[in-house]
């Protein structure tokens, strides 16, 4: 489990990390010649802009020292960090021109980005020009709120290692769901917890127990609970936190329920007992939700106790050098009755071989150092056992994937390129994905890249026709079917200092564009919300490589 997590975090981090600035020359004697001679390999010249400001505590006005300030511009792969001095000052020199997000974090304070009025607002871009000096880019960080309390069992005894999370409603793929927001914590041996650094807002508090010893004989488990003491999120009590508020001595008593023991055997595809790890994950949640697990015995048997009622995916995997070699999954429903004699049979991951090619209509060379991996088409599906594959110099790749319907996700320095189409033996599967079946390999996959990227930009005016600088612009495909395709047909933009928004990289199609006064995270992918606002939107068609300017009137969110 540990290294799976690490692997997937590493891949997420890949897109966001860069070393554009450091000039660094290395002489390694025996190296014959560099692998590539394109312009990528020369380090960029240092920028000419300067950026400076102060970080203070919003309540006291006192300077905050050792706050971390980060500036990040994805298109030019600039990612830099500075720390404030004893007077709360920070400075970036030799900054390259670009469209940056600027964010500040300090311990238990609420982190803020440039352009955020509320911590849930999307940040605004800061357009930095050559030779520009941006002064007084100041941040006043609100003190985080604190919730302290205690979790006890049915006897009033403290329970340790209960996961405590502040949750808030968010729209995910059109469904309003409670999702963890911000820091989480777990109870100590006194059953006590202290959640801190919470941005002001409305929350629901959840307490999730999981067995600390899946090999014990305890028949008691505890259902996940929302404050003050319900399993039903609809009955959870809303907690409203003001800036810097401390809410103390919350007590939650967990309710015992009958635990399920799951046992069985795992056989490898060679018919021999499979060894490795087995994990039990709650299904329906987003991300990882480990509820138990343990090692598979040398004879292929496993037994895991302490599973609370609910739906789970059991996943067995063996490990070899370079990652999981065989996996087996099965879905179970725990009701309190033991589940015995489960038989899992391991399968090797499927291999998809193919090639990355360039749009024949453009004159450019293929970017180097790209990786790609499969992602489940359904974003609610567990992301496990997926491994990025590296593109060879000639564009070919060999990708391993877990079974299921997958789309192809590019990673690494795209340098202004975007995916134009994904084809499987000539058939366009860009928006529908491809089905991986256990023990079946796929060949003839083709990913076509282009640097003809679409751009929509514009200015926004209010009812009186005055230009405004506070809004969120969103663009979404006119065809509702396309809303299901992650990442290609919906996007949003925020105004820069001039009030201009810019949305780049949407797939060519017919779109609605609308500027809204406020938007909650997740609404961009909420079909109900999009249906409600389409009537106020401006319809446009954007073709490959086209740049469109669309000036908009602000709309009030219904």
């Amino acid at each position, binding site marked *: 489990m540990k290294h799976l997590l690490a692997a997937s975090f590493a891949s997420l981090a890949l897109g966001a990390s860069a070393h554009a600035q450091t000039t660094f*020359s290395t002489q390694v004697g025996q190296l014959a010649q560099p692998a590539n001679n394109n312009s990528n390999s020369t380090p960029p010249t240092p920028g000419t802009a300067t950026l400076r400001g102060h970080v203070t505590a919003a309540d006291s006005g006192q300077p905050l020292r050792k706050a971390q300030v980060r500036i990040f511009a994805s298109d030019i792969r600039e990612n830099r960090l500075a*720390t404030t001095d004893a007077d709360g000052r920070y400075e970036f020199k030799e900054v390259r021109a670009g469209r940056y997000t600027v964010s500040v974090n300090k311990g*238990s304070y609420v982190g803020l980005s440039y352009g955020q009025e509320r911590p849930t607002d999307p940040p605004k871009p800061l357009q930095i020009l050559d030779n520009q000096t941006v002064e007084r880019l100041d941040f006043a960080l609100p003190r985080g709120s604190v919730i302290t309390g205690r979790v006890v069992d049915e006897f009033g005894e403290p329970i340790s*290692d209960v996961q405590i999370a502040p949750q808030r409603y968010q729209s995910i793929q059109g469904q309003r769901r409670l999702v963890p927001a911000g820091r989480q914590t777990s109870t100590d041996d006194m059953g006590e917890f202290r959640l801190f650094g919470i941005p002001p807002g409305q929350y629901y508090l959840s307490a999730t127990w999981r067995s600390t*010893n899946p090999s014990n*004989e305890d028949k008691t488990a505890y259902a996940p609970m929302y404050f003050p003491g319900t399993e039903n999120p609809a009955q959870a009590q809303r907690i409203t936190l003001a800036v810097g508020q401390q809410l103390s001595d919350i007590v939650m008593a967990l309710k015992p329920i009958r635990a399920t023991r799951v046992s069985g055997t795992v056989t490898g595809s060679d018919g021999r007992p499979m060894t490795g790890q087995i994990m039990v994950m709650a299904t329906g949640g987003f991300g990882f939700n480990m509820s138990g697990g343990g090692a598979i015995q040398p004879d292929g048997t496993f037994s895991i106790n302490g599973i609370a009622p609910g739906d789970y995916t059991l996943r067995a995997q063996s490990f070899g050098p370079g990652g999981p070699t065989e996996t087996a999954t099965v879905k179970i429903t725990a009701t309190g009755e033991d589940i015995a004699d489960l038989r899992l049979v391991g399968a090797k991951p499927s291999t998809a071989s193919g090639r990355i090619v360039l749009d024949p209509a453009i004159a450019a060379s293929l970017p180097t150092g790209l990786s790609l991996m499969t992602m489940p088409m359904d974003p609610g599906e567990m992301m496990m056992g997926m491994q990025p594959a590296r593109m060879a110099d000639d564009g070919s790749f060999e990708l391993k994937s877990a079974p299921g319907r997958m789309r192809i996700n590019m990673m690494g320095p795209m340098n202004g390129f975007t995916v134009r189409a994904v084809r499987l033996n000539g058939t366009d599967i860009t928006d529908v994905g491809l089905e991986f079946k256990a023990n079946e390999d796929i060949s003839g996959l083709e990913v076509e890249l282009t640097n003809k990227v679409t751009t929509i930009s514009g200015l926004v005016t209010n009812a009186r026709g005055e230009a405004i600088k506070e809004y969120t612009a969103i663009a979404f495909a006119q065809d509702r079917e396309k809303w299901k395709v992650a990442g290609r047909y919906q996007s949003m933009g925020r105004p820069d200092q001039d009030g201009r928004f810019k949305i780049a990289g949407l797939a060519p199609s017919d779109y609605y564009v609308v500027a809204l006064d406020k938007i909650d995270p997740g609404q961009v992918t909420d079909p109900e919300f999009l249906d409600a606002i389409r009537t106020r939107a401006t319809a446009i068609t954007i073709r490959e490589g086209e740049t469109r300017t669309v000036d908009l009137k602000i709309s009030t969110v219904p």
Partner: protein
Amino acid sequence: MSRAFVCLVAVLTLAWAQPSPAQTPPSQPARDTPAAATGGTAVVRGRVVEAATGRGLSRVQVRANTTMTGPPPVPYPWAAMTDADGRYEIKGIPAGTYAIAATKPNYVRSAFGAERVEGPGKRMTLTDGQVLDKIDLRLVRAGVVTGRVVDEFGDPVTDVQVVPMRYQFVQGSRRLTRAGRGAQTNDIGEYRIFGLSPGQYYVSAVLQNVSMGQQDTNDRSGYAPTYYPGTGNVAEAQRLTIAQGQTLTAVNLTLLPTQTVRASGIVVDAQGRPMGNVGVSAMQGFSGMGYFGGQTKPDGTFTINGLTPGEYTLRANLQGNQEQAVLALRIDGSDVTDLQLMVTKPSTIRGRVAFEEGGTPPKASAIRVTAMRADSVVGAGGGVAVKDDLSFEMPLPAGRVFVRSPAPGPNWRLNRVLLNGIDVTDSAVDVPVNGSLNDVVVELTDHLYPISGRVTDSNGTLVRDCFVIVFGQDPAGWTPGTRYLSSTRPGLDDLFHAKMPAGAYYAIAVTDVDPGAWTDPEFLTQARERATKFSIAAGETKTVDLPLSPAPVF
């Protein structure tokens, strides 16, 4: 400037890479097999109370542990949970000998009739239909350490990892390693480490700046790993003794500001060509504290910021690919430049398993061949199952390793390892970069001869609760996973039992020893001063009675 060697990776196989009690060959002779899980009629009941308050403890797991050998049945049938008042009743126990033990999270495990904390329980013989009442147990809360972490200005620091540590023998050296779960400081700098077994600990605090390694920064400020009460020097760290049930409060630390350093270099492929956009990580060695990441630029160069002094394992990761580069790196106070990481396929050890002439050999499916690191690369061991024709092929990162095979049963054990016909059992082998060792013979033997005896204290009283360590007289054989070392405890018959190859040995009986400490040559060097010498010849059965020794000062 340092230049380092390059090697490749296998998977995280820490379990194989570190000596542990599990790797010492089994020494208990098989006596009985576990009784059938059904049909018992004996009953054990009693009450579990908290030692400090005398109140009944709920949800304590009480088990009647069978003293018979063999894997315990799963689920374990002779166990019960206490009720609100701490009462329990275990029913349906077959006639036999048992020890009763109680466990509850954040309490120290306790066995009925134990002579000391965490000691083995009194063995009790149950007959059919017998009801054993008033088997009462007292549980002591596990140790707790609390305190506060501040910076050089006295301000509380959030998100500091505070970790209990102990000295352990790992990959050939005694190192301060993590011992138990740590804790993280909250918004007011406070931490609480709980669930600690009684013993001696060091406490260290590390502020990990996760994002620092990946980002471009000229900021060289950072904090060195700080040991309580406030030193970066392990030798000056203050040892804390946690007695049973003790809570140590105000274990406060002030983080030591330090200049951090950079490690930089280049990642190349097997042909020496630079590799752009490869993830490079630096993991702080054996303390398990600290992870730094970066990525190569298109020209293959990389820089990792924010490193504080210590041992690191550097890895270049080709995502989803078996090809990797691994390198052990020591950071002192200055920048490290010109590192070269060559990414190649894993190296391979190929060979076969052979048996010294003897009884029925174990099944191929029960045999594994493993590699234990003899260098300081962390998490780069290897291990494979043997094929049906007794051949094996083990991918692993290049470097120095001991080839081993865990005992496939009580009667068979590693005898020797041959490379091209030369005995390399106790001398590690060098696995070449981008290459293989092709003629490795791992020979197992059943030529093991029984040694048994009783342990008495200075009054001549029989001692049942102790550890007996039997080890070869020749220090050349004190290698990780050696066949000339056994640890055991007296059994039901009041005797300890071990099975060893013919040879000259020491044996020592001690009351207590940290798990795995007996694999440390330093421990063995001290232990032999007061150990009993003996030899065992092929075919011989040896009786060696031992006096109980004070534990070596260690």
